């Protein structure tokens, strides 16, 4: 009985989210004079983050896991201060792979939120939080495959770097043109190729270097302390 009620609640949650997003999209296009993709996408990003954080509040999470999440977040923050090649996404990926979807998402989202105190807060923070959070979430979701296969993990890191850069290009286009236009998007992707390469290269480099030591340490904490 309890299980079915739980599942019912889960289903309700997804329905709420799925109904909410088109509702925002419809309201956005009706209220403002043009199709305001930027408002809609910001509202969707904020809604997704809100749903996650409210769900996280409800869940039973041990104190040890809480603190380990905080530590992985601050290691990512520390990494964001390194110039040009940054281990941020690589660390988020490793956190997701070894500690699960939820911890991965939280680490990514909080890293974006807190590091923007130094790099500048703005409407883009919501987008960065979601993008980096999703990197952590997907690495957690694919954890069973990635944990055993190191080359695949590195390829996944490169893909994540490219995906992150391209998601942020969507933001750039929305920011300038308010609505989405494929032509401008291609131009934005073109101009951000150096960034895309730097993300890919730093993810690959840091996953090659860090996946063994960090993975071992996280595994040890997981086994020894039951995080």
């Amino acid at each position, binding site marked *: 009985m309890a299980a079915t009620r739980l599942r019912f609640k889960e289903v309700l949650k997804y329905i709420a989210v799925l109904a909410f997003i088109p509702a925002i999209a419809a309201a956005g296009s*009706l*209220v*403002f*004079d*043009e199709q*305001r993709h*930027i*408002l809609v996408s*910001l509202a969707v990003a904020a809604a997704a983050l*809100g749903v996650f*954080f*409210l769900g*996280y*509040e409800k869940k039973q*999470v*041990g*104190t*040890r896991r*809480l*603190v*380990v*999440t*905080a*530590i992985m*977040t*601050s*290691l990512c*923050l*520390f990494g964001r201060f390194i110039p040009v090649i940054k281990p941020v996404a690589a660390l988020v990926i490793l956190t997701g792979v070894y500690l699960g979807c939820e911890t991965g998402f*939280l680490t990514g989202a*909080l890293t974006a*939120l*807190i590091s923007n*105190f130094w790099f*500048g*807060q*703005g*409407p883009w923070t919501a987008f960065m939080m979601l993008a980096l959070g999703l990197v952590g979430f997907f690495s957690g979701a694919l954890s069973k495959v990635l944990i055993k296969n190191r080359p695949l993990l590195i390829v996944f890191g490169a893909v994540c770097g490219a995906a992150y850069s391209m998601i942020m290009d969507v933001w750039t286009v929305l*920011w*300038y*043109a*308010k609505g989405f236009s494929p*032509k*401008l998007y291609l*131009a934005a992707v073109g101009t951000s190729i150096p960034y895309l390469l730097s993300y890919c290269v730093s993810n690959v480099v840091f996953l090659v*270097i*860090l996946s063994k*030591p*960090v993975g071992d*340490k*996280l595994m040890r*904490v997981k086994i020894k*302390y039951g995080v």
Partner: protein
Amino acid sequence: MRRIRDMHPLSVTVFFVCVTMLAMSVSHPAVTAASLVLSMLLFTVLKGAKSIRTHILILIFFIIFTLINPVISHKGSTVLFMVNDTPVTLESLLYGLNAAAGLCSVFYWVFSFSAVMDSERMLCVFGLISPRAALVASCSIRYLTLIKAQYRRTKLSMRAIGLYTDGNIIDLIRGNMRVFSSVIGWALENGIATADSMAARGCGSTKRTAFSVKKFRLGDGIFMAAALMLSALCVACSALGSLKITFYPKTVLAPADAAGFIGIASFILLAVMPSAIETGVKLKWRRSMSEV
């Protein structure tokens, strides 16, 4: 009345979210112009003489943003001149100007927001949404300083025993990686001890609540309610179609009517609120100082 800095972070956040969203979504030139001027005013009031560098930076952005559109978009019916057989139109220039004013005003709003809110205020707002995630965030800010200190310490001791050199780039990277790896181990181990002592003091035994020294007072409530009401008014007027502007093929403003006027007035009132409060408080302070 208190200064914006001393108000409750929640009402400050609500105000800035409202005004930024409106500045991004309403493209009536009166609104974008008002937004640009008033956001600039607020930033200057908040920062004083220190704001000049930001003004110059944003001016450069303004020029770039204005010129991008006529370069890439050749829609519009009024051709100003031809460059290499492609027309540069008045409409696309106006569109660029309007978009640049909107974007630059968003920059100003965001910079003012950062000037008012520090990480403690931000965590106060975040704690209202999710106390547990706010705890994780504040722990990680604490650990950032601890990790920095430990990094320096580890590096020094590794150099002392000859494991760290920065003679060439390979050595530098390898040395830093070794230090970083050791710091990760230390942080995780230290974190477990911290977590256990937190658990021993009852962390996680009941639902978490967020603590903040900031009290939500009447003035904060009035400020927040005013911000919400004025932006709702502006959104409603925009929904009626009175704040419409079309650029292509010809620049056409929606005919001026009561709704349009109310929409613009409510936006101006909204945007002028913080600067007015700041200036009012400053004047009051000066007056009471001169009476002493």
